[in-house]
């Protein structure tokens, strides 16, 4: 599918800011599942924007306004083609050999260990039970892809998806205690369980087809302004990185546009900035539009 993505952000400071540095991860990634056709970035006041890849291979743009300014705005416009039509379309590795398959991938790509071992407040070590429910353990004889889907179902009884929450909590425990959370919180929980299973899992930030936000569509969502979405990817034997969206209970397909991946939401932060000023956070107006241009 081909999508047009437009993200516009305007910041207004109460007292002029200076030496303002901004780093954004908003452009779709160019990888085996999707091709970026074009990306345009426009910044006002005018300045030079540069691009670089971070330690997880994510594309980040950065720019700086050194002079004092009360307002800064930028707009990123991208066209991307996604190809991952059917996440179930792959040759299964027999379940008895799935862990060997993962062990071999870990041997060939030691960087994957980060996505097994990393623990943080967002993806903590989990107890055996949460809210009286036993945390699923990896079972023999059942395909990993099925077990992750079972996990998504289990999770829905634990954290209800709250679409109004845009960003994940700094600590997963607050979503667990509250019984509700953002898409990012659900992704973090899925990742934390997968890592307990010693299976590589990573956090993804990206965009979702506008149809998911259409009240007339089949997805069970209220009409909401579009915003960045978050889900998880698990390394599935035979398939590779496979997207699981516990918020919607779906596997990611070509309607999901990947922007950045990391150990947790900290690694994929969409906007990071630093400036000299009065220390008061600016007023931010952030708009996103994702439109489907074609089905092929």
């Amino acid at each position, binding site marked *: 599918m081909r999508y047009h993505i437009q993200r516009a952000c305007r910041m207004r400071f109460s007292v002029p800011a200076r030496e303002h540095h901004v780093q954004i991860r908003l452009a779709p990634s160019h990888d085996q599942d999707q091709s970026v056709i074009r990306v345009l970035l426009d910044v006002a006041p005018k300045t030079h924007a540069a691009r670089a890849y971070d330690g997880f291979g994510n594309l980040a743009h950065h720019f700086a306004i050194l002079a004092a300014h009360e307002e800064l705005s930028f707009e990123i416009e991208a066209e991307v083609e996604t190809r991952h039509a059917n996440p179930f379309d792959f040759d299964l590795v027999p379940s008895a050999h799935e862990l060997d398959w993962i062990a071999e991938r870990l041997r060939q790509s*030691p960087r994957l260990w980060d996505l097994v071992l990393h623990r943080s407040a967002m993806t903590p070590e989990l107890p055996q039970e949460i809210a009286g429910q036993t945390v699923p353990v990896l079972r023999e004889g059942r395909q990993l892809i099925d077990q992750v889907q079972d996990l998504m179902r289990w999770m829905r009884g634990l954290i209800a998806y709250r679409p109004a929450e845009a960003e994940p909590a700094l600590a997963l425990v607050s979503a667990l205690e509250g019984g509700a959370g953002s898409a990012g919180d659900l992704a973090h929980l899925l990742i934390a369980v997968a890592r307990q299973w010693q299976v590589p899992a990573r956090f993804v930030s990206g965009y979702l087809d506008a149809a998911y936000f259409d009240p007339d569509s089949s997805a069970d969502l209220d009409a909401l302004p579009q915003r960045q979405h978050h889900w998880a990817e698990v390394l599935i034997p035979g398939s590779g990185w496979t997207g699981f969206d516990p918020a919607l209970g779906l596997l990611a397909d070509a309607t999901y546009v990947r922007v950045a991946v990391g150990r947790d939401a900290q690694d994929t932060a969409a906007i990071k900035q630093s400036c000299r000023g009065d220390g008061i956070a600016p007023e931010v107006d952030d708009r996103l539009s994702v439109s489907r241009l074609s089905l092929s």
Partner: protein
Amino acid sequence: MFRQFQANGGGQLLDHSEGPAMAFHEFYRDDFRPRDHYLAMWEHIQGIGQQGLARKARDAQLALHNEGVTFTLYSGKDKGIERVWPLDILPRIIPAREWQPIEAGLKQRVCALNLFLKDLYHGQQILKDGVVPPELIYRGKDLCREIMDVDPPGDIYLHISGVDLIRDEDGRYLVLEDNLRTPSGVSYMIENRVIQRRLLPELFSNYRVRRVEHYPEHLLQALRYLSPRGPDAAVVVVLTPGLFNAAYFEHSFLAREMGVELAEGRDLVCKNDKVYLKTTLGLRQVDVIYRRIDDEYLDPLVFRADSVLGAAGLINAWRAGNVALVNAPGTGIADDKAVYAYVPDIIRYYLGETPILPSVPTYQMTDHQDRTYVLDNMEKMVIKAVAESGGYGMLMGPDSTAAQRDQFAKKIVAAPRHYIAQPVVQISRHLCYLDAELESRHLDLRPFCIYGRDIEVVPGGLTRVAMRRGSLVVNSSQGGGSKDTWVLAD
């Protein structure tokens, strides 16, 4: 045991040292005669006598005070107080035949560790080949994901290093730990020499002592070598956290001696992937930053967002190849104390050579068998937190109480990757002149290496002395003292 010195016009000199059994004594042979290379010094201090030595010790303190050579204690009742640098006036002497393997061993070690860092932040072949366990690296606190696949100028990460050496019961030099982030102490090494030369000029003339005072000149040369705009056009700055840092004296000393600007984060600004120094004449592009701030404070866009010590955009400028950072970010993983145990394998893997300098045997707390052994024998062990330095987060088994051991045992069980253990090594002793008496104290040695066009080891280093009798803790930040270190020419 007391040994009486010949006193010459100034009262008696009494040596209150205990016998040289157990720990190797660098000054005395087993028969209490000074070792050959100390004979001239022995005769000289006898000639000076008690009163003369006391006067020289006072002069040394006065000179250090006048020169403003200070450091800050980080613990104890004097925590946070700036103190005059403690220098023992009796130097440590290392003959050329002893120094040669140290120099070769340090070059070998630094070379291998630099290759290790390059590999870790690129292809990770050493992990794929199973020489170092990937879990050990990825559980380490100091692996810097943000610099993966970045090529630092000249492929050098470890421009400046200080490797702590000790001597075991047989007098063998062993590596105790590597300091590969922003090791300090070099200014004290130089000040010690300047003052020592002034205090004991006649003794100096009896020995052919190799110079250490040229260190800033060689450092500047190595820093210029890294400049993306070429050595001749290089603008170099020393980046300091500021006046309240314990090592501020050293930062200002090195900037002054090299003739470069001493900058704080607020003096730098990044624009279009270049770093500039704010000057009264406008912005001036910076090519090389000798930074004395930790990785996590370098750039608020990449590391700690609340840091005001670094400069936003620094890492992007470095990644773009427009500025050299010295040391490169991410070197901390190579001096992680759990990685230390693998350094001999790292040397063999990259260089195909046998390690010249041996290491202290190390128990990994992630290994069940090692952990069980250590937990059963804590009173014989030194237990260290892997990501701490300066003697912090450490349990000295023989000096510990049952309650302290119990507390450490719990910490180890809760987070085994955070700790390692080593058997207590009776580190060597040396004669010191302390409070108008001759006493023996334990000591170590931190030589400094500079990696520019080649790897250079400064002939000397900072000898750190445990000031308390019997103590094995030599860290300056915990009240240790120092000695000038004389490496002799052939």
